[in-house]
């Protein structure tokens, strides 16, 4: 015999369940609350016509806007991913945007597809001037739910789209086998068909740092090169440099900074790189072997950088670098108790000497990392702040 409760009770049960849901969520750490705060991670680029393109993250979507007046006004945002995703968009993880030679807009980001330190590298493109984007694809062929992130994006001279990231699969395998493994690993892939498909990823190097952004740049030969923090020996957090070959040639990552900074920590400060037409590799990086310091130098892989110059100490962070002819610009965030200053130094002799540091912008609210953009020989700094995105022109003195 089956018990049949009275109709009133049958109606009450689902109502009671619904009423309990928020209470259950609060009891489990408030997991129903949402992140409404705008993330500061943003990616920007100029296209061949000098229009500024900007990718930011809003409510689970990467959105793209463009500006024909150097960031004074922007078009309505266009959603890139139609379905919401949990997107990494703070700290050194940010969406990336690059433009192709025929006006393509390429957008890349890291999705967190579930709880914990896991990530998928995602990519979409627009071939109609940013009006619509292709369905996002996951770039990493390996589907394991491991840490991935701190991705970077660059376009090779032949139009190939090169994508790199930090990947935790080797560390996870070692852990499950009970073996030690320092850091994570640096992987990359490329697309030779304009972003429709990507080649199976290649591992460039074991033992990368786990939590610092990676830098890619295009050299005068059109090849894309990488500069990123590694883990050498007993937790020494120096950087590696390598050409990312997309033709099957063997890769040769080489240590390129030699600070000897040893720490079992997440620095959350990755490097920057720009290659001159003369092939000189202008780099900026952070280390704290003798207190916090950001540096400029010209990479000579296998040896200490040339023309090394300490740009800033306490409170200086997240530098970027750009080069045009013999002019080299470096910019970084300088924080103090009242807020943030965007600092600049420039060189007119290819980085051999730099003028004094000067403040080119300030903010009393939180800021993201500065990103250099160049257009028609002039440089700009893209600076996303909690009060909105700013494009700051850079004058050389």
């Amino acid at each position, binding site marked *: 015999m089956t018990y049949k409760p009275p109709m009133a009770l049958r109606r009450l049960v689902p109502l009671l369940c619904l009423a309990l849901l928020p209470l259950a969520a609060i009891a489990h*750490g*408030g997991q129903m609350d949402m992140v409404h705060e705008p993330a500061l991670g943003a990616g920007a680029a100029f296209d061949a016509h000098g229009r500024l393109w900007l990718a930011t993250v809003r409510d689970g979507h990467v959105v793209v806007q463009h500006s024909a007046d150097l960031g004074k006004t922007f078009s309505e945002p266009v959603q890139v991913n139609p379905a919401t995703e949990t997107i990494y968009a*703070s700290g050194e993880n940010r969406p990336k945007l690059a433009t192709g030679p025929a006006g393509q807009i390429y957008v890349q980001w890291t999705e967190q597809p579930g709880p914990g330190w896991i990530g998928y590298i995602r990519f979409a493109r627009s071939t109609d001037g940013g009006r619509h984007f292709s369905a996002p694809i996951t770039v990493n062929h390996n589907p394991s739910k491991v840490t991935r992130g701190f991705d970077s994006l660059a376009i090779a001279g032949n139009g190939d789209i090169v994508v790199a990231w930090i990947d935790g699969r080797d560390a996870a395998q070692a852990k499950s086998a009970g073996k030690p493994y320092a850091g994570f690993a640096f992987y990359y892939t490329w697309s030779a068909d304009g972003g429709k498909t990507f080649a199976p990823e290649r591992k460039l190097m074991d033992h990368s740092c786990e*939590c610092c952004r990676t830098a890619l740049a295009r050299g005068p030969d059109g090849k894309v090169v990488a500069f990123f923090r590694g883990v050498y020996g007993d937790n020494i957090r120096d950087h590696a440099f390598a050409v990312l070959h997309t033709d099957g040639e063997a890769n040769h990552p080489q240590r390129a900074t030699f600070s000897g900074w040893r720490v*079992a*920590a997440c620095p*959350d400060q990755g490097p920057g790189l720009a290659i001159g037409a003369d092939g000189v590799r202008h780099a900026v990086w*952070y280390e*704290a072997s003798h207190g916090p310091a950001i540096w400029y130098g010209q990479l000579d892989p296998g040896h200490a950088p040339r023309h090394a110059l300490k740009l800033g100490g306490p409170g200086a962070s997240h530098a970027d670098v750009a080069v045009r002819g013999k002019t080299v610009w470096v910019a970084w965030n300088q924080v103090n108790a009242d807020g943030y200053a965007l600092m600049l130094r420039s060189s007119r002799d290819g980085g051999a000497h730099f003028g004094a540091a000067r403040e080119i912008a300030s903010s009393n609210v939180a800021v993201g990392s500065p990103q250099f953009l160049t257009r028609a020989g002039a440089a700009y700094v893209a600076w996303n702040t909690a009060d909105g995105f700013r494009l700051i022109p850079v004058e050389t003195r």
Partner: protein
Amino acid sequence: MRRLLTILLLTVAATAFARGIAIEPLGPNDVAALLKPPVRGERIVMVWSLDCVYCEPNMRALAKLQRARPRHIQLVTVATDSIAQRARIAARLEAAGMQDFPARAYTEPSPARINFLIDPNWGGELPRTIVIRADGSRTAISGELTEKQLAQLAP
């Protein structure tokens, strides 16, 4: 149906008495109080973030240290992630068994300013363990603590 009602009532009871981790905000104006020397013993402030792979073992080791000397050590965790992410922060703390310790999270979406106010000679690398003693002295260490460092924290 009786079983369903029993489950429902048990859920009500469990939910009402379950205790989530309350994350308190830490803004620029709160830093001085956080760093004020305790009346006795020492306060250990462990600064961490959601993305930091070295932080959880450090957290567990400090919790063990505190439990061994509960009258001497206060332990406070501070997430550099914005408090807007309080659900993720609470979930991570809960997974690490940190329910018994006061927990704070930065009020700003970028950590650099509050980092600077806590210690201008720190570049933000995590974990950061700050020991503040009753006599006003202070020690700060970046990175996952070694056994030797842990032993020296609370002599």
